[in-house]
C-alpha cells in the first residue's frame, strides 16, 4: 500500500528536509503534500485522501494545535493519525497533545532514522531490513 502524507510547517526548510527524509525511507509513498499552516492543511485534507499528517505547532494564520482541534471535531478527520514535529520540549504540552489524540511527538532536531521508525510504527509498516 502506498501512502499519501501531508507535511505542515511554515518553514520551507523543514518541509524540504522532511520530504527528503520520507523519500529516503523504505516507506511506499504515493504523494507528499505540503502546507504552510493549519488553514492550508485543512484545505488540503478536504480535497485529498491523506493517510498521515506531520505537523509543526508554532505557525502563523492557524497553529498546529488549532489544526488538531479542528480535525478532532471533523467526523472524517478525527481518526487520521497525526505526528507533531516541534521544537517545544515541554512534557506538559506533549501530554496535552496526546490527550487530544496526537499519536506521536518528534522533537527538532530530528534524525531521519527517528522519523522513519515512528512513521513505520504509526502506519504499522514492517520492512525486510536484511
Amino acid at each position, binding site marked *: 500500500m502506498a501512502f499519501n502524507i501531508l507535511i505542515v510547517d511554515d518553514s*520551507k*526548510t523543514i518541509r524540504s528536509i522532511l520530504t527528503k527524509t520520507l523519500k529516503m525511507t523504505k516507506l511506499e509513498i504515493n504523494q507528499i503534500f505540503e502546507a504552510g499552516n493549519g488553514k492550508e492543511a485543512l484545505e488540503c485534507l478536504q480535497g485529498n485522501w491523506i493517510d498521515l499528517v506531520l505537523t509543526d505547532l508554532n505557525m502563523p494564520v492557524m497553529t498546529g494545535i488549532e489544526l488538531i482541534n479542528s480535525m478532532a471535531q471533523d467526523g472524517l478527520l478525527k481518526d487520521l493519525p497525526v505526528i507533531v514535529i516541534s*521544537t517545544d520540549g515541554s512534557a506538559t504540552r506533549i501530554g496535552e497533545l496526546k490527550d487530544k489524540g496526537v499519536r506521536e511527538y518528534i522533537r527538532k*532536531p530530528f534524525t531521519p532514522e527517528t522519523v522513519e521508525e515512528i512513521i513505520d510504527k504509526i502506519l504499522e509498516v514492517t520492512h525486510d531490513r536484511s
Partner: protein
Amino acid sequence: MTDHNCMESLNEVVSKVFEQTAFLFPEPANLADGISFDDLELFLVTITFSGDAEGDVSLILPIEMCRELSSNILGEDAGETEDREKYIDAVKEILNIITGQLLTKLFGHKALFNLSAPQIMELNREEFFSTIEQKDYSCHLIEQYPVITTLTLRTGSYEHTGAGSR
C-alpha cells in the same frame, strides 16, 4: 545581566544544534581578538518567548553564513543563484530549534513557553554595535564567519531553578 550559567547553557545549545542540524562546528571566539565585521552584510534574527519566563534569543550572522547553513541543512551545494529567502528560512529554523532546546535546558521539561515567529532585520555597523552593547552575547566562529548569539531574560520573570542545567 543574564546569569553566567545561562550564557554557558546557550553556548552549549548553539554548538549542539549547529553540529546536529548542519554539521557545522562553532568555535568560541572573542570580539576583542580583532574579528572584523566591517565588510559583512549582517542579519539579526530574534525570537521572543513568554510563559514561565520571558525574554528573547537572537542570532547575528553574515549572509554568507546563512548561505552555508542553508546548504548544509538541505544537503545541497551552495547555488550560484542567490536565494536569500531560502537562506533566511534556514536561519530562522535554526534559531527556533536553539530557543526550544535552550528553554528546556534552563527551565526543565515541565515549563511551558510560547515562542514568537522569528523576526529578521538587516544591521548596519552602528546598529550592530548598538545591539551587542545592550545585550549579553557570546561569539563563535563557524567556518570563517563570526556568529553572535544573545540571550535576554526579563527582570522579574526569571526564577532560575537549575532544572535541566548542569
